[in-house]
């Protein structure tokens, strides 16, 4: 880990501690909890996309598996939520492993389509297997989480808990990036052939990272189930997988902090848009929540066209650009004076 990462994590932790004192309405805390769950999934996805260079449009499926494992085991078999969450993780490890072996042999478009196909199959099964997943009616009455007898029964408690997990996940991911594994991954991203000739076992690395990123998604799904206490196939459709890719891409594929920024920004975007709509109504412009999808698409497209490295990287570069511009102007003026 580098110094700036320590600073980042410290700053994030401080922010998280303060937030509940500023935001006291439970509804907005709920929004921030969903933000945390998205962040968790995006950190995993960023490891895969940014550091291993493999795209996955199927991470919604791993979230779904985690969520359904938690929901089914706790409501139908009476397991403890922690055991169920663990089982979800184990299931996801197996699924990701077996899906990963053939899938990760593929490249580029094929890989994207294969993961998309996998996600669609999981979604179809969650709708069709009525006896198992409850079908479109979903699963109700999922128990709350509790830690050592301390029940997470309020939004504030769950807020701290979910963000604590995000920070832990972030710490792990950042450490991984600077480890031997991380360097190996970067090499794969640069050139697969060069990496393998230098002794990096590409397949093993790719599968490891795929499984790890799936674990992040699975935990995010389990937490979702235990926060909302109700699940149905709705939130785990292909669109959700696409949204996760969007979050990572908007923030910056090649930087874990970028992915985090993207996840936070896009998770808060609907709230911002609904706030903006109240504001615009004063001017006689009617903004409907229906436009949200359009806004997401437009943001993604603009970022990809003009800032392919994402907002985070763009921020860094434009600060530099401003300085350059200033220097040039100063120079120009002094020359003009002469």
């Amino acid at each position, binding site marked *: 880990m580098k110094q700036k990462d320590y600073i980042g994590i410290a700053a994030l932790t401080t922010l998280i501690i303060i937030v509940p004192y*500023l*935001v*006291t*309405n*439970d*509804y*907005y805390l*709920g929004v921030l909890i969903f933000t945390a769950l998205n962040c968790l999934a995006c950190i995993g996805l960023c490891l895969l996309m940014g550091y291993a260079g493999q795209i996955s449009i199927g991470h919604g499926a791993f979230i779904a598996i985690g969520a359904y494992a938690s929901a089914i085991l706790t409501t139908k078999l009476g397991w403890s939520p922690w055991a169920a969450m663990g089982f979800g993780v184990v299931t996801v490890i197996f699924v990701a492993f077996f899906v990963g072996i053939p899938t990760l042999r593929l490249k580029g478009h094929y890989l994207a389509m294969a993961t998309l196909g996998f996600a669609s199959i999981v979604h179809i099964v969650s*709708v*069709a297997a*009525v006896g198992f997943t409850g*079908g*479109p*009616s*979903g699963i*109700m*009455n999922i128990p709350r989480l509790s830690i050592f007898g301390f029940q997470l029964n309020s*939004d504030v408690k769950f807020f701290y808990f979910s963000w604590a997990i995000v920070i832990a996940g972030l710490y792990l991911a950042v450490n991984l990036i600077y480890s031997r594994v991380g360097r190996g991954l970067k090499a794969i991203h640069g050139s697969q052939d060069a990496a393998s000739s230098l002794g990096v076992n590409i397949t093993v690395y790719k599968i490891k990272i795929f499984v790890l990123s799936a674990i992040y998604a699975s935990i995010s799904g389990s937490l979702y189930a235990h926060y*909302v*206490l*109700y*699940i*149905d196939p*709705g*939130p785990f459709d292909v669109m959700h997988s696409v949204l996760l890719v969007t979050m990572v891409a908007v923030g910056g594929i090649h930087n874990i902090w970028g992915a985090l920024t993207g996840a936070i*920004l896009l998770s*808060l*975007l609907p*709230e*911002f848009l609904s*706030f*903006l709509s109240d504001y615009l109504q004063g001017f006689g412009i009617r903004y409907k*929540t*229906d436009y949200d999808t359009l806004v997401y698409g437009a943001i993604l497209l*603009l*970022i990809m066209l*003009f*800032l392919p490295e994402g*907002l985070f990287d*763009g*921020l860094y*570069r*434009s600060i530099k*650009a*401003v300085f350059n*511009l200033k220097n040039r102007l100063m120079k120009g003026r002094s020359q003009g004076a002469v």
Partner: protein
Amino acid sequence: MKKRSLILLIGAALILAFSATGLWAEEKAAPAAEGGEYHVGCIFAITGKASWLGEPERNTAEMVAKEINDAGGINGKKLVLHIEDDQGDNTQAVNAVNKLIKKDKVCAIIGPSTSGTSMAVVPIAQEAQIPLISCAGAAVIVEPVAERKWIFKVPQKDSDCVRRIYDHMTSKGIKDIGIITTTSGFGGAGRDQLKKIAEEYAIKIVADETYDPTATDMTAQLVKIKNAGAQAVVNWSIEPAQSIVPQNMKQLKMTIPLYQSHGFGNIKYAQAAGDAGEGIIFPAGRLLAVDTVSDDDPQKKVLVSYRDKYEKTYSDKVSTFGGHAYDALWILANALKKVGDDPAKLRDEIEKTEFVGTAGVFKFSPADHCGLDKTAFEMLTVKDGKFVVLKE
């Protein structure tokens, strides 16, 4: 290039700043149950697959609220509706109920429109102890009553709907039937009732087929029903499938009668089915056949006044679903008038309510949170693209 990225970045920074201020500003603007207003939440499937239910419900709720407020409100207080659109999606409904309870601090909730969404939000309303008046058909929403203390519903029960259909079949000598239901909340509950009540009537279900709420082709299921030798088909859903099943049947040249549930109560479903929709038989509230209701019927006055007002305000055909919102909001308004906006008192008051509504004559009791029986139904059919009372 650099300039462009700068503009984008400033945009992003603004978004972040606005989001933060948004959280702040709304925080302060959140209504803290001010003295002069009653806050009521509404959740309807205004858009999406079930929009032919939710849209008339939203329209009706707004119309009734305006009427109440124009007449000086309730006890001199303004009735404020917080209307949310769940798009017929269960998770959206769960989020919307949480939002209404936590952010808008409503005293009671009307809706959701569909049985699936209603079932999904039942535990939340129960836990938050906020009365909820569902506008959906499945009886399981309010049964068993012991576990549904805070939940009421205004549409007729699906179990009564099944009984009316089976009554009609028995009178026609139909014994072997095929059923085709969606796997969504309403379809699933309907399938259970169809199977359970079939025994009472000695009706045999020779084919039991299901389809996903998003399915668009039911040919394969209907082929199986056809081959099983059914004398009639019952389709149970609220999705556009209600118009596709008759089309598929026509395509397969199946001439046996098609029965549908009370979820067919919007003329748009019949219009979408076109020619194939002719002759569909379904039970529905008297609202769709106002003109055939005799003048001394207790419902006559309310039916005529609601229909005329709705059709005048929105220049659209009246549907039974809008009627459910009408019943729910008036039942709640009457209770608000008597006991104010304390959720617990409201609940107790609704449980004692007797009310003449569009769906029937309600008589709520601690043992019955629906308050209607099978006499609230009339058997209707589609003739020349219109709903008419079935005369046989």
